[in-house]
């Protein structure tokens, strides 16, 4: 009897998990240019090629489905070089995120290596920092809302809110591209997060240490007033690839392949 119950329960759990674990929908992001907070020496706009972006960050349920396929990334099997000790530490066990974590809350406490692997296994990749920032500068109506005071206020007020990481995905605003949760839920990994040069002491007149970084003195903030973006860059600059923290999750992106339909037909 007990056995039957267990079987039934795991069957239902399986269904539940697979329902939640469906692939994240993607939207197409049109090509364009933008001037990043930290960019190139000439401070020219950076070109962004057309690409696809996940509408939501990756959830606990989706990440669990990934771990079941690739158990070498489970909490007890994960190699120390790829993630620190707090990897998935808020989960109950290797293959159970427990009752305290929602199925559809963003997965956090994941390292860059783990996030990268997850996206690769979906046939996707992590977005570049420029792609991420390009999508993140849109509000509900505009591609670039960075100069709008209300938009910046919204972002800044989130930075002050505690524990938004426990919220479900898709509860913040839908931006111009149809993407949710770029602000208001969790911080997110990017493919080239380790391309930032800020020293620990950001109040110095020179914001980098020339002796530690070659060529660093030539790149400065284009918009020192853009405090919200500065916070993100500073946060990324403080990360190492194996770090995991409770408020840091990720989403995936993908190159936009021409002739998508014929390829799908072949399958």
């Amino acid at each position, binding site marked *: 009897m007990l056995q039957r119950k267990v079987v039934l329960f795991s069957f239902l759990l399986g269904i539940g998990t697979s329902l939640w674990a469906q692939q994240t929908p993607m939207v197409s992001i049109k090509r364009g240019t933008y001037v990043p907070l930290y960019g190139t020496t000439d401070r020219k706009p950076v070109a962004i090629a057309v690409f696809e972006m996940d509408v939501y960050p990756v959830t606990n349920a989706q990440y669990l489905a990934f771990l079941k396929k690739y158990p070498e990334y489970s909490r007890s099997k994960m190699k120390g070089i790829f993630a620190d000790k707090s990897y998935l530490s808020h989960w109950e066990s290797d293959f159970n995120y427990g009752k305290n974590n929602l199925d559809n809350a963003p997965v956090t406490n994941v390292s860059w290596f783990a996030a990268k692997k997850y996206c690769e296994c979906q046939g996707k990749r992590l977005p570049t920092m420029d792609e991420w920032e390009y999508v993140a500068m849109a509000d509900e109506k505009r591609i670039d809302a960075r100069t709008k005071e209300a938009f910046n206020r919204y972002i800044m007020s989130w930075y002050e809110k505690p524990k938004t990481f426990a919220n479900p995905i898709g509860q913040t605003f839908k931006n111009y591209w149809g993407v949710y949760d770029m602000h208001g839920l969790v911080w997110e990994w990017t493919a080239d997060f380790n*391309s930032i040069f800020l020293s620990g002491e950001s109040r110095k007149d020179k914001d980098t240490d020339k002796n530690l970084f070659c*060529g660093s003195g030539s790149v400065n903030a284009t918009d020192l007033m853009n405090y919200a973006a500065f916070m993100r860059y500073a946060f990324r600059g403080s990360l190492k690839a194996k770090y995991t923290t409770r408020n840091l999750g990720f989403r995936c992106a993908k190159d936009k392949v021409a002739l998508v339909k014929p390829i799908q037909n072949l399958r």
Partner: protein
Amino acid sequence: MMKSKIECRKIKKGIVSLLFLGVFVVAMALALQSCNQKAKAAVKDKPISDLSIYNLPSKWTNQNGQSIEMKDLKGKVLVMVMIYTSCKAACPRLVADMRNIEQRLPENIKDDVQLVLVSIAPEVDTPKRLKTFAVENKMDSNQWFFLRSTEENTREFAAVLAVNYKKIAPLEFSHSNIISVFNADGELVYQQEGLGVNSDPTIAKITEEAQKLN
């Protein structure tokens, strides 16, 4: 009849206890053997540790066009730095630091040390170009490896070394100046940060790790 039954029982008991003894002996022998095997394996083919860079599956090409994986370097102390050959600012000094470290290593450990320069500009730093750079800088002996891979593998390797880099102009990169030392198991044991810093602690660490191998 009775007698034979009793004897039969005795024999049965004997057989059973013999069997037990036999199983015990075999088990002991097996246990001992597996212990021996384990001990041998540990010496010969130690499993790659959790913190080892030999866990990285990426493939690289050296200045001689040979294809290698990080684990091919297993068993040597590695001194690694990330550079690009067209760099005019910090890299020449980083390269000089590397050469300086090599020259100051005690002769008896040099065979146990591999010095590795990894390109952060793989699209321009072809094996041919790396070879030219090696020859020009008198770093062309077997002790030196110049490696390149895909942009993605390079980004991942930089992540492991905690090296940050960014392309800031067509042939110019901003990058961290870090020389990393790995022990023979591929575990990071020391990092020298900055330019023109005193290399004494770095050399001491390399020597310490290399002497463990003899």
